[in-house]
């Protein structure tokens, strides 16, 4: 029995519920943290711990405001991924799985990621 149902998969027009936004944000941030995140992190560590000259080079690179902004973007990805990950660990333990709490914790994750990024931004500037 085939029913003709309207398919409505226009990604621009579908409005994701808040937990859905957190979920896709967790995935997208995870991919970006994998690449270019991990190689950049290792290259940074390599420069930081290599020689005094490479340390100075790293310091000079990060004195640039644009580089700081990009770094802050990366930190936002990490903070969102971190907060969303904590939420999933809680959900695994069956904490907050009711709709109301799940929505509230999704909002908290989005806000928490942004606030932590803001705090770190103030500290590194």
């Amino acid at each position: 029995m085939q029913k003709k149902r309207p398919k409505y998969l226009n990604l621009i027009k579908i409005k994701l519920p808040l937990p859905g936004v957190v979920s896709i944000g967790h995935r997208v941030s995870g991919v970006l943290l994998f690449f270019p995140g991990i190689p950049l992190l290792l290259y940074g560590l390599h420069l930081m711990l290599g020689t005094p000259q490479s340390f100075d080079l790293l310091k000079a690179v990060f004195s640039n405001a644009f580089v700081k902004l990009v770094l802050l973007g990366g930190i936002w990805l990490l903070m969102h991924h971190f907060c969303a990950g904590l939420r999933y660990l809680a959900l695994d333990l069956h904490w907050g799985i009711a709709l109301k709490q799940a929505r509230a914790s999704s909002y908290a994750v989005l806000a928490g990621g942004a606030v932590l990024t803001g705090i770190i931004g103030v500290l590194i500037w």
Partner: protein
Amino acid sequence: MVSRANQNRIVTGAHYGLMDWLAQRVTAAVMAVYMVLLAAVLIVAAPQDYAAWKAIFTQPVFRIATLLFLLSLYWHAWIGMRDIFMDYIHPVAIRLTLQIGVILSLVVYTIWSVQILWG
């Protein structure tokens, strides 16, 4: 609780699902603890120059903790990337190529990590 109907059921499959699920969460917890401790160290006494950073990173405890963090990161990244490939990349040849690319890069990152930390 095992229901009566399921008592004699032989569960088939590769059995790596639960292991990966658990590994993803354990590695996440390891990374979370490391990052919180690192943040605490940086807030209390942020090293200012090369010598100070080097001094922290040559402490055996810190070296091993950092390596543990990085290895957890690589394992965590493998499971996450594999899950995403399984969900979105359906042609087997492309998915396999991507998965091999991720595995090889993580092996290289592991070698590089040891070089950085003990170099």
